[in-house]
């Protein structure tokens, strides 16, 4: 098991390093930070002096090495626009994204669990049709459209929820729904098909043959095993929620890393872009790692299979 965990950690580290190299290289090729800071009216001498000061006059591999050396210690450089350490900016905003992600994930799991189970159990029924209908909408509807429509209905027309900003519990509702739509749809679909498969298995048939009540069969025998595939994707979905919240955070003015990244891209703030992408890569790699380990822990067949092979 330890060997398995170690190999997964190494894979995660390699992924993070590759992502950081790609992001750094693309950023370096996409513009000149010195020109951005000094403006188009700066002379070539001014720009050369600023490039030297920023270290961008060196070859890109050297620049990357210098950046990586500091990044390992947590120093992600300073924002070009805000003139503040990137790590401070991320430290201020990451908790907000994590809070939104946790809420989104929590209610997504609850809704998906209930509706996915019901749809699986009542396969082919009108309820199943409705659930599948909303699943398709959840997958198909672009989140920016969902967000704008939600604001129009719940904030403007009925005035029951705030349109933007982070504050009390009510401010979580619209961003979390927007962010969770696709997640809920994915989880529901997965759980429904998993439930259908489990309900057709031998041990469920045996349980029914023993005369157990349908409620007991579903809750005690079927649903628990149907949840197994869900946990495989749950970690990834959580990571996606946290790192993929750019649209929801921008539309709802949520002060998280998604909004920070959006703004950094708009303003070509390369150190911030690199920092945000690195945090995203670390989050996803970490979530993958946790899921892999957890899955091996929960389902011994996986680690046994690996041990045997």
């Amino acid at each position, binding site marked *: 098991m330890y060997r398995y965990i170690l190999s997964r950690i190494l894979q995660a580290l390699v992924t993070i390093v590759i992502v950081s190299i790609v992001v750094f290289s693309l950023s370096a090729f996409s*513009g000149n930070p010195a020109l951005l*800071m000094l403006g*188009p009216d700066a002379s070539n001498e001014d720009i050369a002096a600023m490039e030297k000061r920023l270290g961008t006059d060196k070859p890109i591999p050297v620049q990357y090495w210098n950046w990586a050396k500091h990044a390992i210690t947590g120093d992600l450089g300073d924002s070009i626009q805000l003139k503040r350490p990137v790590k401070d900016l991320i430290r201020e905003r990451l908790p907000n994204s994590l809070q939104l992600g946790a809420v989104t*994930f929590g209610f997504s799991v609850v809704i998906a669990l209930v509706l996915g189970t019901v749809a699986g159990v009542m396969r082919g029924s009108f309820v199943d049709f409705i659930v599948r209908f909303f699943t398709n909408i959840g997958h198909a509807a672009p989140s920016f459209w969902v967000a704008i429509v939600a604001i129009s209905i719940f904030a403007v027309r009925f005035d029951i929820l705030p349109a933007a900003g982070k*504050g009390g519990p009510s401010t979580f509702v619209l961003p979390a729904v927007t962010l969770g739509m696709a997640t809920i749809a994915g989880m529901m679909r997965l759980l429904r098909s998993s439930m259908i498969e489990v309900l057709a298995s031998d041990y469920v048939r045996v349980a029914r043959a023993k005369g157990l009540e349908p409620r007991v069969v579903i809750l005690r025998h079927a649903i628990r095993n149907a949840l197994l595939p869900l946990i495989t994707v749950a970690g990834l979905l959580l990571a996606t929620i946290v790192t993929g919240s750019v649209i929801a955070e921008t539309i709802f003015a949520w002060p998280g890393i998604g*909004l920070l990244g959006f*703004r950094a891209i708009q303003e070509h703030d390369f150190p911030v872009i690199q920092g945000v992408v690195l945090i995203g890569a670390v989050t996803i790699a970490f979530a993958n790692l946790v899921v892999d380990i957890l899955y091996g822990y929960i389902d011994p067949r996986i680690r046994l299979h690996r041990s045997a092979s």
Partner: protein
Amino acid sequence: MRVRGKMTKLTKVIVPVMVVGLIVAACGGGGDPTAAPPPPPTPAPTATPAPTATLEPAATTAPVATRAPTATARPVPTPTPPPTPVTGPQGELVMAIPSFGDDLLDPNLASVVGLQPLSGPIYDGLTYLTPGTGPDGGKNAPGIAVSWEASPDASAFTYKIRQGMKFHDGTDVTVEDVAWSAERFADPEAPSNPSLIWRRNVANIEIVDEQTVRFTATRPRPQLPVGIGFRGGTVFPKAALEAQGAEAFFEKPIATGPWKLVERQPGVKYTYEPSGIDHPFRASPAFARLVMRLIPEESTRVALIRTGSAQITDMSPGSVPSVRRSNITILEAPGTAIVAVQFWGARNPELFATVPLGDVRVREALKLAVNRQQIIDVILNGFGELPPRNLITQLRDAWDPTWEPTPYDPERARELLAEAGYSDGFEITYFTTAAAGFPFTQPVIEAVAGFWDAIGVKTKLEQIDTSTHGTLTRERPLPARIVGTVSTQASFQSFSIDLFILLVCFYGSGFCPGISLLPAADAFAGELLREFDPQKRIELSRAIINAGHDAHIDLPIVLTPKLFAVSPDVTGDATRGVTHLGGSLETFRPVSS
């Protein structure tokens, strides 16, 4: 049994995550009080705006010229501020803005000084440009300085500082503070663009006496007073800034504006309160609190106005139909941006022989082919004007009322193409850039490409960001692929030709969008920079602009206003709203029901 054991572990994983999520939802984390709709501004009695009388300058270096009347009829309601009884400021004014810019209040760090929405409420300049579109608009007016004089050769400028002016902490503004602040702005280590420009233009700052400070330019520069007021005239208390250190000081800077900053949440919101000190040349705030909230998405900002969660926001013409369906007022600051086509190929002789745009008839044809009025009517919902020339608006001194816009004449355009040997048309690739805050740029550009397609010029649009565009256009000679760009540039609604030239081609690097690389225009620009007589400066400015027009080096498509959606319960002066209302939010007051 195995299933049960496995599921117990599973439950241990799922349940805590759900519980944590729900607890966080219930707690909601740190509160942002502005997220909930703020109390509506009290329509009850408020302070009378009554800015104190503006002193006349002893001598102004800004040319005073007759300008064309600029008022235009607009299909928007015009709010009439009712008389309000006098009491203290009450209620809260919330403005939703798309960007905080740099989120920085230290002019040595910020990339734009004086135009920032966040610093506008709290900072003053030595001078400021008068708002409005009438004959008194766009003049360099007294601010912290009451008067100024230029040396005969326009290389030194002497300012008299207003007596009795106070900082937010109650201390007096002294001439030492003025000189020290200007010196600080010139710090060679300051990485900001405005500091760079300041260092390039101002050679020396000296205290003449207790009331007088003199700025010496690096060379004769008649237009420098506008730059001094605009760029380096922000004054800070030397003692407080030195005692606190810059980082701590600019968390809640002490300055002289009618508002003081009381809370700063970078990237989220800034909260201000009236400074409590009678301001000598700006209105006293009518609201007890001013909150600037960062809301990047326009539809969200408009929703905040509709729900009463904010009172003011800026908006694009595309939002006009939805706003008109509600009772939101639209205020406009006319002439704040120009969407223009630049025919870069016209300015590089080496390209003349290789690209169709090198032929003046082709460029004229492309101008005649565009139905700009239709673009204004359809894409901009009527909020725009036909600019007869590029880089100038009717608000500038050099505006010539006899100028006529280029007509829409596709037949003549086809004839010109045929005369130039392109009767079958040709293909071109155009770069497009859009300054932040102008979302209509892309649809306008696509419409232009459509009109060109109609006369046989197949146009491929490539969108690039402004920094990449800036990098490309710095190359000399211009790269052959830069035959043209289409962009929206913020214009400066109330600025005189002095500042126009200062901004456009006076930064010493030779970068001069819209004018440079055209020999005739460059020659006039060189003369203009040395000319001190106001009338001659206007004539030279017109000569520059006409040279560009006659050579068809560009096509101004539309002159657009800056639009503000304003809650029906407040009103104020939006005419200073070049890109924001930071410097005039003190003029907003509740509307009595």
